[in-house]
């Protein structure tokens, strides 16, 4: 049961992100919601590769243990974090430009493209 706790957290975080993505009106809050979804995915990947009692997956200095945690999901997570960093930065700079052009961050008022 306790082994599945990370996945439970992932589910809750993901749903929190999704709900606030659909319910928020403020662009900054939407950006935060997307970051939360990204974090949920990253936790999901890391906890996929976790083995109970496993040591760090390095060739040297790995310690005494006979099991190691899986290295691939960790590599994937690192890559995903870098990508999320880039997209969050891009998203925030776009939001900044929106603020400059429209003077508001309310998505209901940013509607020049319609129909």
């Amino acid at each position, binding site marked *: 049961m306790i082994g599945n706790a990370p996945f439970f957290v992932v589910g809750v975080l993901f749903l929190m992100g999704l709900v606030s*993505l659909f319910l928020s009106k403020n*662009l900054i809050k*939407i950006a935060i919601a*997307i970051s939360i*979804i*990204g974090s949920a*995915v990253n936790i*999901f*990947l890391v906890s*996929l590769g976790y083995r109970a009692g496993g040591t760090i997956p390095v060739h040297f200095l790995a310690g005494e243990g006979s099991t190691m945690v899986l290295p*691939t*999901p960790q590599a*994937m997570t690192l*890559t*995903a974090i870098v*990508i999320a960093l*880039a*997209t969050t930065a*891009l*998203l925030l700079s*776009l*939001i900044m*430009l*929106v603020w400059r*052009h*429209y003077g508001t961050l309310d998505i209901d008022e*940013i509607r*020049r*493209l319609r*129909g």
Partner: protein
Amino acid sequence: MNWNEHFPALLLIIPLFGAFLAPVCSLGGKMARNILLVAASFLTLVVAFLLWRSVLANGIQYYVMGGENFRLALPSGMALPVRIILEVDAFSAFMALCGSIAAFAGALFSVNYMNRFSGQSRFTSLYLLLATGMLGMMITGDLFNFFIFIEISSIASFGLIAFWRDKPSAIEASLKYTLVSQVGSMLILIAAGSLYGKYNALNMAAIGSSLTMGTMEKLALVFLVGSLAMKCGAFPMHMWLPDAYAEAPTGVTCLLVAVSQASLYGLMRVCFSIYGVAMGSTFVPWMIIIFGLASMFFGVSMAVVQHDIKRLMGYHSVSQVGYMLLGLGVGLLVLGDARGMADFGFTAIKGGVFHVFNYTMYKALLFLTAGALYYATGKKDLNEMGGLARRMPYTTFMFVIAAAAISGLPPFNGFVSKLLIYESSFAVHPSLAVVALLTSVLTLASFVKVFQTAFLGPEKNNLLHVQEVPPAMLLGMVVLTAAILGATLFPSWTLSNLVEPAARALVDQSGYIGAIVGGGM
């Protein structure tokens, strides 16, 4: 050394290297940068062509990244491939060929089109990066790698859509696309993670070889199909597409058309090569067919009422993607059924695959003609144009060819692929073909309207100064026109040499898997 074997890597290295060389080249002035843009995209096209030739001659090609030997898919003592593998079968090579033709035409067009604007070194860099992402999606054989390439192409396209950052509408379109596509990419990553958790592999062939349907697989399939259908602009997740296509600089729109095809490629790769017959139920094929029908019909009915020429074409993109989804969905429906496959399934897949080629060519050409109109007149609204056929004869000629092809008028290539789709979807249910035909009629109506208002009629007084666009832009359009006319004049050659190997490779799941896992089916 045999160069043939390195084509998959070269296909990615050339545009990627070009992208990072662009800021350096810009120090040498405009000329150097333009030469870099055109040369890099031309070399990519050449490599894609050679790769396609070599795949047709020698079968599936793969390339192992990060290993000591690039031909060693399964290191000894391993049951599963552990490296990142690029796997190119006839379908991937076909898609890469289509994509690089569009990229080359867009690059030629952009040389003049972007001349009036600053920030071109960024433009060149992002353009080549977008091409890299697109080609990477098409030739990778690894799910996580697919996610990375989708992110490379997304980030490059966010930047390019918002290239004119002083225009509020461009920022808005880019922001919309960013929001939608970020959620989509996260879903793809979850799907890749869940499949990894189940099968300990990220390689598509390795997952496909041992896949049995369960809850986790269903979840992953739903996430993958949903997010990739969103990325290729299927209704009801299409709302970003017309905005993004309309606001991006025109050369980029031409490439974005091909990028949306890369997402379609991913969707088909997932459905046919990873899941394939193991999918079991007809739920997902019917979902794809319904996505297709809805995109077709709603896309075209929203296109008919548009005034902005690029938005109009953007909505047509939604409806054209519907045709491919319909054709490939019908093929997927009868995948496990040998008789249905021989009767109409394979025809449907051929129609879908041929439509990918046709769509990429004529849609890219239509966007380029729209860009040429904008370049020459400075206007986007159809109501403000008129009588341009006298001023811009070449553009008019190419527009007519593209419009006839997209409306499916015989004998143009659009007619051939649409006919294949009508025939085969009729065998599933007549109403599918009815919707497809109706869409085709509305498409024709809408392009007659564009032709009549923009090119025919009396000349407007404020458009008397208009001149034909510069030669490099015309050349970019000529490349695509030549591709359309080629497919029109030699339909049987195109079908048997270009389309059929690709369709056969798409259906051949065991071939795709066996090339990597080595007869592990």
